[in-house]
């Protein structure tokens, strides 16, 4: 493998990692804070992709489309949190089952609105070309994905590390009951966090569509499985773990996919099984205190 080849594959892996990070970060934080395993996360991701596709085809304005995709998913997330999840607070198994219902509902809704077949989602003009890297080349869109992933990572890291709400989220991950005892309105915090997670999923979907150049109604499930693997490997509720998991899986997909494309699915699952046997709570598990 030549150096330029290595660089191209490395950047491809980085762009795949960025997508995985966008898809998984909301899932991980929502579980960490609220104990909710959100099966509808992939469906929210897909809704973001479909809304962004519609807006982009109508206006030709891609940044607006991405924002709309994120907002649509956030809105769905907020409604879902208030109506379906809050009444079941403290009963994680039932909450997980309700999110499966929401997944079914959203998947079906997408089919009713946009039809069951694939719809193409072209790339925005400025992002369409290729960039030369030594003797190789990489598509501008992949570089854009790396940029988006990096920006979201920095914003989220800054938010969690140094804002008041970020501190409340971190405290809530460790012990939501104690946080409430200290006078924090955890209900509001939960709704906010769920909306934020859904927004990031929607943004992820909006930038994922042009990456594979299409949207289809099965998109949600495949993303859900990849996100699950990322957060299981990284450790649920751990922001750093999600970053690490995305990088591991993204790079693995790029490099193993280069050597033997059929192997990647198996390898993801095998990697997950190995991590679980060694560290059952993931690589960077969060120390949690539960009454």
């Amino acid at each position, binding site marked *: 493998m030549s150096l330029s080849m290595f660089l191209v594959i490395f950047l491809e892996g980085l762009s795949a990692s960025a997508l995985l990070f966008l898809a998984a970060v909301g899932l991980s934080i929502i579980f960490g804070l609220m104990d909710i395993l959100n099966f509808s996360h992939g469906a929210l991701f897909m809704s973001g992709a479909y809304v962004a596709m519609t807006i982009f085809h109508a206006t030709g304005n891609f940044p607006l489309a991405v924002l709309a995709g994120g907002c649509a998913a956030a809105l769905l997330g907020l409604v879902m949190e208030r109506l379906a999840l809050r009444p079941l607070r403290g009963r994680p198994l039932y909450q997980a089952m309700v999110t499966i219902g929401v997944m079914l509902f959203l998947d079906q809704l997408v089919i009713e609105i946009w039809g069951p077949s694939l719809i193409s989602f072209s790339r925005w003009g400025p992002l369409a070309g290729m960039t030369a890297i030594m003797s190789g080349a990489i598509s501008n869109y992949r570089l854009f994905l790396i940029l988006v992933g990096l920006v979201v990572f920095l914003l989220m890291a800054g938010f969690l590390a140094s804002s008041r709400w970020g501190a409340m989220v971190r405290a809530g991950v460790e012990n939501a009951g104690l946080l409430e005892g200290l006078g924090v309105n955890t209900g509001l915090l939960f709704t906010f966090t769920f909306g934020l997670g859904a927004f990031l999923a929607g943004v992820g979907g909006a930038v994922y569509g042009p990456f594979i150049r299409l949207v289809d109604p099965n998109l949600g499930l495949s993303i859900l*499985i990849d996100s699950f693997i990322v957060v299981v490997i990284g450790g649920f509720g751990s922001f750093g773990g999600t970053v690490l998991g995305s990088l591991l899986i993204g790079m693995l997909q790029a490099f193993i996919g280069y050597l033997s494309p059929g192997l990647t699915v198996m390898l993801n699952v095998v990697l997950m099984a190995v991590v679980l046997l060694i560290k059952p709570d993931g690589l960077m598990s969060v120390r949690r205190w539960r009454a």
Partner: protein
Amino acid sequence: MRKYPTLLVGGVLLAVAPLTLSSFVLSLLAQAAVLAVFAASYDLLLGYTGIFSFGHALFLGVGAYLAALFLLNGHSLPLAMLAAVSAAAVLAVVIGAVTLRSKGVYYAMITLAFAEMFHIYAGMAKVTGGANGLIGIPLPSFIAAPVGDYYVMVIFAVICFGAMYFFLDSPTGRVLRAVRDNPTRAAMIGYNVPLYLVIAQVVAAVFAALAGVFLALNQGMVYTNVLSSNTTVNALLIVVLGGIGTLFGAVAGSLIVVVAGSILANYFPYWPLILGALYIIVVLLYPQGLMQLSFKRLGTIFRSNPAKEPNVSAGSDEGSDFH
């Protein structure tokens, strides 16, 4: 004792049903019977052991594919069943061993990943017929006609439900419920909790694989869809609608999803959407299934912390190992 008249009436109704029903309805009933067994095996995990699996389709699929392969290669049905059951049991032990140390929520995701791996493999490999699946399974002559198919599936379901009932009523089955309600206490009393969790997974896998064998017989073909997560979601739908932790609720749930579903779908163009909404409402308001319909509970959705149901099997705070 008063159970026997009900059982007798039910048995007679099932036996004479082919005299009055069209072959379309009979084929739906046969399919519902098989899916009821599959859903009930899922309920063994979800409702009776407190394990939340999202990859139960794996065992149905393994059963169906092995049955198809064995029959296509000229082997007998009992041999196919034996192969399906043993393969499912081995898989369940392996997955159980990997997940033993992982908490509840991880279990759902790991099982999903395993099932999806097989789903993708079945869509690519030559031995499973790839995306086309395995078609033209040579069926024993007594299954080929709709009436014969109906009787075979119903008798299969009755035997399986009987076996599951006695298993759950056995000392082992009672320990499973103790593990579900309070794993720490069960361990303190001296039960080997991980062992019992693996036992539950193996038993559930075996019944799911048997359902897979009969699904292959019922359909005459096997297609990758049987391994997809939609299949697991279907089982979850059936169990939730029928009532979690009520073994026979799976029969009612299966009738709603299969029979009512395919008839209502003709009248309501948005039936899948309605089914999804119905499922959400049932989980929110009637966690014990549609059999427990009561309109008093409709108000609880607008209260932030509804009172807990005394008998909800899975998901009580100290009961599930979900944290």
